[in-house]
């Protein structure tokens, strides 16, 4: 329940930033994908049905404020969660670098999914032009990830939440 509450509040904050920051940011690509960072943190440190459901819910919440295809972000956020879950299960240890790499890959996957949907709808051009934007956004998200992981870890400690492998 505490995990749900923590990630619910963090999700609201992240979505508020992601939807308002583009209004004053000169370049949209400079606004990071903060929700992916939350999903990666879940995948690396919280395993079980509840964290997976939270990841899906975060994707669905993003869908409500983004794009036109309900379920697209939900699908890809769950995929990112499963990927990071698998990675954390196979590595001896997970640190901020691993998390940052996972965020970069996750951000690329979710962004490419959004662009890919437009591409499949017969849009004449734009995929190549959007790739640099996608890379920049993923890189910024990855750079921010360690600080957010650290902040989340501190809040979890304060809330008495235990991370990793202990089934939620």
């Amino acid at each position, binding site marked *: 329940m505490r995990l749900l509450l923590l990630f619910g509040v963090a999700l609201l904050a992240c*979505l508020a930033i*992601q*939807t*308002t*920051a*583009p*209004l004053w940011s000169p370049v*949209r*690509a400079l*606004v990071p*994908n903060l*929700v992916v960072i939350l999903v990666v943190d879940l995948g690396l440190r919280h395993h079980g049905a509840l964290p997976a459901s939270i990841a899906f819910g975060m994707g669905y919440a*993003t869908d*409500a*404020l*983004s*794009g*036109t295809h309900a379920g697209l*972000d939900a699908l890809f956020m769950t995929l990112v969660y499963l990927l990071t879950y698998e990675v954390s299960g196979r590595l001896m240890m997970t640190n901020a670098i691993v998390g940052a790499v996972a965020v970069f890959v996750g951000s690329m996957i*979710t*962004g490419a999914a*959004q*662009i890919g949907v*437009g*591409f499949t*709808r017969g*849009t*004449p*051009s*734009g*995929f190549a*032009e*959007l790739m640099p*934007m*996608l890379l920049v*956004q993923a890189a910024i998200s990855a750079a921010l990830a360690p600080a957010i992981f650290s902040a989340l870890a501190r809040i979890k400690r304060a809330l008495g939440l235990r991370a990793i492998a202990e089934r939620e």
Partner: protein
Amino acid sequence: MFISLHMLSTGLGPGAVASWPGRMLLEALRPFQVATTGLAESGTSLVHDYLDLVNVRKENSKLKLELAQVRTEQTRLAELEAENRRLSELLELRQALGVSAVGANVIGSDASGFSRTLLLGQGTDGGVESGMAVISAEGVVGKIIAASAHASRVLLIDDHNSALDTFDQRSRARGIVAGVLDGGLVMKYVGRTDDVKPGDTVVTSGLDGIFPRGLLVGTVKKVGRDAPGLFLDVSVAPAVNFRRLEQVLVITQTPPKLTSGKKPKS
């Protein structure tokens, strides 16, 4: 004692002049007195200057604060004036169109950044519903795709999922204006024989039952005839700068659908 009494008695009368020791003393003291007076004046001036400086510093700080407040107020007034101008334009537009509409503030953008949507601070409580047209003083903005009680989402016309029935105002050539992934608009399904030129104005046809007829969509930027196929490759520059949108108008009354004029057979 006697000398002093004598001196006192002889010097009492009116107009009595000072004795020579007194005059000598007066002369001898004069330079010192001048110097002392000068010094005292300088000292007083220094003290006054210092006190003035302290006061000036205080006054300067106060004036700086007042200036900052005035500047803030001026910025706020300029912002209010700009908002007032935009709202007046929207009001004029609403009156010109003769439709019922509600104004809404833009409160957010798309969460992912790869779709072109905006969040509005007006929802079903304000009469906004899914499918309604959104316009600004510059032209067509988009269509409401979701609405909650106090907020709604607009799909902008430059999103790759958007399609809008339009025509060239000069030649009346029809086409569907759609968004492209990297921004901008294209006018699809314009026949190769149609007369479309760069600089032509593209307006809504009103046939979609969402947007009133004749609203400005954009200007033809480029017409490509080189590619094979049945249709022209027409690029359109949108009339609205979607990044600068702050207030929009949501048309709450959809225009009447065009009919053939014949009564349906019963």
